[in-house]
Each structure stands twice: as structure tokens, then as C-alpha cells.
């Protein structure tokens, strides 16, 4: 345990910020460049995870455990979101026989 904490000492909080921003930007890129709905949902999961890690890092830095409780709630929310989202995807696939997001353009107007 002590060695793990020692490993942590010396990493600036800035580097956590930069790292989580890069992961978040990768998630945004994934939403923009893919057409498969399931991959788009996976990119959203990536963004949620980046924010989770940043919340945990700041929580550790401030010595306040509220941030980690918030991460726990975000994980519960993500589980609910994935369950409903995948159910919607299955329903759409049953109607249109494709997971292409462009097959959903009837809702555009």
C-alpha cells in the first residue's frame, strides 16, 4: 500500500487533467467519425470514464471522499443508460435491419 502511494507522489494534477482531456476528445472524435450506433455509445462510455477518473483524482487531491461517491453514482447512471440505449438499438435494428445512424434520419424534421 505504501509503495502504491509513493508511486503516486510527484504526478502533477495537471497531467491528470491533460490525460483525461485527451481521452474525452478521443470519445468526441469517436462520436463524430463512426456511423455504427453501438460504437457511438461506446465512445460515450469513454467520455464518462474520463470524467470519472478526473473526479477521483481531484477527490484524492482534496482529501474529500464526496468526489468518489459521485463517481459511484455516475457508474450507476451509466449502467442504466447502457441498458436502455441497447434496448432502443435492438428495437431499431428489428425495424430497419441496420445499426447505421443515418437510418434514423426520419426524426430530423
Amino acid at each position, binding site marked *: *500500500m505504501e509503495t502504491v*502511494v509513493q*508511486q*503516486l507522489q*510527484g*504526478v*502533477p*494534477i495537471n*497531467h*491528470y*487533467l*491533460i*490525460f483525461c*482531456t*485527451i*481521452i*474525452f*476528445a*478521443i470519445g*468526441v*472524435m469517436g462520436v*463524430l*467519425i*463512426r*456511423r*455504427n450506433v*453501438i*460504437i457511438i455509445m*461506446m*465512445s460515450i*462510455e*469513454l467520455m464518462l*470514464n474520463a470524467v*470519472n*477518473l478526473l473526479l*477521483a483524482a481531484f477527490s*484524492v*487531491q482534496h482529501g*474529500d*471522499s*464526496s468526489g*468518489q*461517491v459521485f*463517481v*459511484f*453514482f455516475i*457508474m*450507476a447512471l*451509466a*449502467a*442504466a443508460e447502457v*441498458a*436502455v440505449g*441497447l*434496448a432502443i438499438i*435492438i*428495437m431499431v*435494428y428489428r425495424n430497419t435491419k441496420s*445499426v447505421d445512424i*443515418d437510418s434514423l434520419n426520419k426524426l430530423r424534421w
Partner: protein
Amino acid sequence: MTVFYFVAFLSIFFALMTIFTKNPVHSVLYLVITFFTFTVHYILLNAQFLAVVNFIVYMGAIMVLFLFVLMLLNLNKDTEPMKSNLVKFMGVIAGCCLLVTFLGVYRVFEISNPLTVINPEIGLVKNLGKVLFNEFLLPFELSSLLLLTAMIGAILLAKKEPKQI
């Protein structure tokens, strides 16, 4: 200290592989590896409860759900819809613009003090449980309601409708 940079590099690499791989099944597997590196990050932050929950809930439950749906819909490389190269290029440019904007904001902030663990005990299950069941009792119960609603909604949505209408 070097462990953090190594694991961060692995996370970024596998996240990039997730969004650039053509085969959806490989994409899910790369995402599982990404989440595993996130678990290592939580362990490095001494947040053991979050590490275990991330491991079980994200890698165990959510990713298996994704993989299950992919297998159920019988998706593979041949059925994968791809955007044109121009749209891809524009998407990457837009993502990089977002990244540059955020990094510029951080330069203005100028917070670069090293991360110091004030209280190494806060990430343990015992302390988090105390906080969760004292200050955050109402949100905790509400999240159980949310999960119940999501479960019922998912079953209702995915059920086949009867054809008698």
C-alpha cells in the same frame, strides 16, 4: 511516477484503437482493455472501492452487454457502415480543436502542484460506505429507483410486440 505515464500511454493507445478499428467486436475488446487501464489508474490513486466497482460493473457487466448485443445482431466487418474519408477527417479536426481549446484553458489556470495524498484512507470501502450511508443516503436510494426504472424500461422496449393489432 513512471507507472502513471506508462498506463496513461496505454489508455490513450487503446482508446484510439477503439474508435479506429473497423471490426466492431475488436472495438469492444479494445474498450475492455482501456477500462482495465482505468482500473489501474484508480489503484494508483488509492481508490480501491472505485477500482473494484470499475472492474466488476464496467468490464464485467456493461462490456459483456455490448458484446452480447453485437453478437446478437450478428455484426462484423462486412456490415460495418463507414463514413466517407472527408467526414472522418473533419471529425478528427473537430476533436483536435476541442482538445486544443481545453489545453489552452489549462494553461491559463496554471495549477501544477504535484498530487499529494492528504488522507490515504478516503478511497477504502469502509470510509466510502460511511459517507455513502450518512450524507448521500437519499441519492443512493434514488439511484436504486433509477436502476429499477431502467430495467423495466429496457425489458419493455426490447420485448417483441404482439402482432394482433
